[in-house]
C-alpha cells in the first residue's frame, strides 16, 4: 500500500504536530495507515458511494480523537490523505462542512492529475513519517 498526501495535508500535519495537545497525531497516523492492507483501510464513513475509489472519513482510534479524510484508489493500492482535524483542543472541531468535504474531494482529483503530492514513508525505526515530494 502506497500512501500519499496533498500539500495542504502536510502543512496541516506540520502545524498540528508542533502543538503540545497534538503530539500523538504522528503515531496515530502511523498506527492506522502504515503496514496495513486495503481491507483495514476500508472502514469509517464512506462519503461517495464509490466501490473502487472510496472517499473515507475515519475516526482514528487513540487518545487524539483525530478525524482523517482520505481517498483510496484500490486498483493502484494507494491512499491519499486529504485533511485531518482533531476533535478537541485549540484546533478542535466537531465536524467540517459539506462544502469543505466537497472542496477537498475536488482538490484530491486535481492533485492526483498534476502529481502535486507527497509520498509518505516511515524512517527505519518506524517512528517518524517522512514526506517526499513527487
Amino acid at each position, binding site marked *: 500500500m502506497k500512501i500519499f498526501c496533498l500539500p495542504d495535508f502536510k502543512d496541516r500535519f506540520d502545524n498540528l504536530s508542533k502543538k503540545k495537545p497534538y503530539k500523538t497525531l504522528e503515531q496515530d497516523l502511523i498506527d492506522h495507515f502504515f503496514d496495513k492492507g486495503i481491507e483495514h483501510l476500508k*472502514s469509517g464513513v464512506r462519503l461517495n*458511494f464509490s466501490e473502487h475509489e472510496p*472517499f473515507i472519513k475515519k475516526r482514528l482510534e487513540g487518545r487524539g480523537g483525530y478525524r482523517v479524510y482520505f481517498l483510496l*484508489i484500490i486498483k493502484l493500492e494507494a491512499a491519499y490523505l486529504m485533511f485531518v482535524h482533531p476533535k478537541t483542543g485549540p484546533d478542535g472541531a*466537531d465536524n467540517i462542512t459539506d462544502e469543505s468535504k*466537497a472542496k477537498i474531494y475536488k482538490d484530491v482529483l486535481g492533485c*492526483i492529475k498534476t502529481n502535486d503530492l507527497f509520498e509518505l514513508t516511515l524512517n527505519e525505526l518506524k517512528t517518524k513519517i517522512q514526506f517526499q515530494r513527487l
Partner: protein
Amino acid sequence: MDCLSTKETINNTFEIVRDTSFSEKTSGIPTENQVNKFLDKILYLQKYLNDKAEKIEDINERLERLTWLNDIDEDSLRQLNGLIASAKDLHSVLIRQLVNLNDFRKKGLAKEAIKRFKSAIDTLKEIISDLESAFFFLPAMPHFLDNTKELSLL
C-alpha cells in the same frame, strides 16, 4: 460583651458541642457495611453507564457500515431517511440522560464512565451528520458526482 451575652455565647457553644457529641456517638463514621453499600451503588452506576456506552458504540459502528452498502435506490434512501430521524430522536433522549448525570459529574463520581458515555453520544451526533452528508447532501452538490466519475477513470 456583657454578662448575659457571655452566658448566651457559652450556652450556644455548649449546645453545639452537646448536639455534635450526641450525633457523633449515635452515627459517627459510617460503618464498613455502609461504605460498602455506597461503593456498590457507585460500581452499579459505572457498569450501567459503561453498558449503555457500549450499546451506543455498537450502534455507531452499525451506522458507519451503512455507508458501505452499494446499490442504494430511492426506497433505500427513504428507509435511511427514517433511520436518520430515529437516530436523531435517540440522540436527544441520550442528551437528556446525560444532563441528569450533572450532579454525579460535579462530585467526580463515575467520572470515566460518564466521559465514555458522553463520547459515545457525541460520536452518534457526528455520525448522524455524516450519514446525511453521504446519502443526501454531498450527492446533491454541484460537481460532486462528476468528481467521482473522473476518479474512476484515473
